């Protein structure tokens, strides 16, 4: 790992304290976010705030199982985020496919396709676990270890290959076939 410049260190410390989150609510995991955001657990006190668009978001929170249709959108959205960007895989679905692991269209491992910085295990993970994950991610960012976005850039070919293998090549490019 390369040594960070002082500016990068400062920037990273800022980044760690201000996390704007885009939650990609594909499954039941999204259920756990409202309590995380609202008064009970209040994630805003860590500087975590929900965002409506990937252009502004720092982390992509994937809350639930992915299938071949949604994964394509996840990748697209991820690529639209500005660097540096981080991914949190939420719940066991993103780790091993969860209870639908044997379905024909379920994606079993998220980090084949996009680099995941933090996984939160469990089905469902409780808000405490989510906050813990945020804290862990912050720590990683501060130390400059959350480098998923760099890995994605460096290993772009590999990721692309995995993506195509699972999703298949798209031959007709229009709004109905992606």
């Amino acid at each position, binding site marked *: 790992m390369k040594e960070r410049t002082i500016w990068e260190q400062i*920037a990273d410390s*800022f*980044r760690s*304290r*201000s996390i*704007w989150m885009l939650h990609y609510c594909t499954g039941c995991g999204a259920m756990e976010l409202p309590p995380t955001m*609202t*008064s009970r657990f*209040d994630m*805003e*006190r*860590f*500087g975590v*705030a*929900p*965002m*409506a*668009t990937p*252009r*502004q978001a*720092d982390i992509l929170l994937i809350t639930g199982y992915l299938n071949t249709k949604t994964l394509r959108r996840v990748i697209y959205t991820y690529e*639209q*985020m*500005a*660097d*540096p960007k981080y991914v949190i895989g939420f719940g066991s679905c993103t780790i091993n496919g969860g209870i639908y692991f044997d379905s024909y269209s379920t994606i079993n491992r998220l980090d084949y396709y996009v680099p995941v910085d933090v996984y939160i295990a469990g089905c469902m993970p409780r808000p405490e676990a989510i906050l813990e994950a945020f804290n862990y991610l912050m720590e990683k960012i501060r130390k400059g270890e959350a480098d998923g976005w760099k890995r994605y850039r460096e290993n772009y070919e590999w990721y692309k290959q995995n993506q195509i293998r699972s999703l298949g090549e798209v031959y007709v490019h229009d709004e109905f076939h992606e």
Partner: protein
Amino acid sequence: MAAYKALFNLVVAFFLVLSLEGIARKIMARIQRRIGPPWYQNFIDLFKALSKHPFSNGWIFDFGVLMALGGALATAMIIPMGSITWTPFPNSDNFFVIMYLFAVGALGMAMGMVGSGNPWASIGVSRALTQMLGYELPYLIVMSSVIFFYKTASIHKLIELQRGGWNLLVMPLGGIVAFISLMGMLGKKPFDIMIAPAEIASGPMVELSGKYMGLLHIMHVFSVFVEISLFVDVFLGGGSFGWYLVKFVVVWVLAVMISSVLPRFRIEQMLKFYWGVPLGLAFLNALFVLLGWTL
């Protein structure tokens, strides 16, 4: 000297509003029984945004952002802060000049954001402009009656002329209407129709990333400064720099508290609201001023 004062304006505006925004988040959190982020959270957010590697959607996108920020900076430089001592350009602090110079920023932002090519940005801008039609009218009528009453549109002179009593007390109706319009200007709930993150993905800002977001945030900071300063100067009698700051904070906190308990209007509801009671009150106020029925 004027240049230093103008620079000072910018510095004050930047730190004051940015911390107030953090405080606002804190207040909102407290109202919702949360702890909330620290007061300096917005500084962190801003610098983080500036440090990111952004996307640019074409030159007009860049140009729009620059124009927006430039316009807001220019306006913030003219604004008097409570008294003639803190008025950088006593000859040009005309109210209409400020209002319209302010529109440069709005236009720049609108243009840049639509230039991003995102339909949501366009929808957001259309809403923002419509909302402008809503809140500006009562506000301008109130301001016209103020100017008619004091026979000057120069802000620092208006401050001086309020020695006898704050304008808010001289024409309370006008003060109330101006405050309601201020809420719309600030884009606080219930008037955050153009942002509406849940409907149109934060509207005009949908394509803003990294430093663009940061620069527009700065622009927003100066806009808030201009809007509230105008209200403080014109309706709350300005005062020494310290008093000015206090009044500024009070107005801001009040606006935040009101906004934190209200839901969002739909666009035509907003228009009907503004063109109903506030506009009526504004005209009533104008009538009172004409007839000399001021307190």
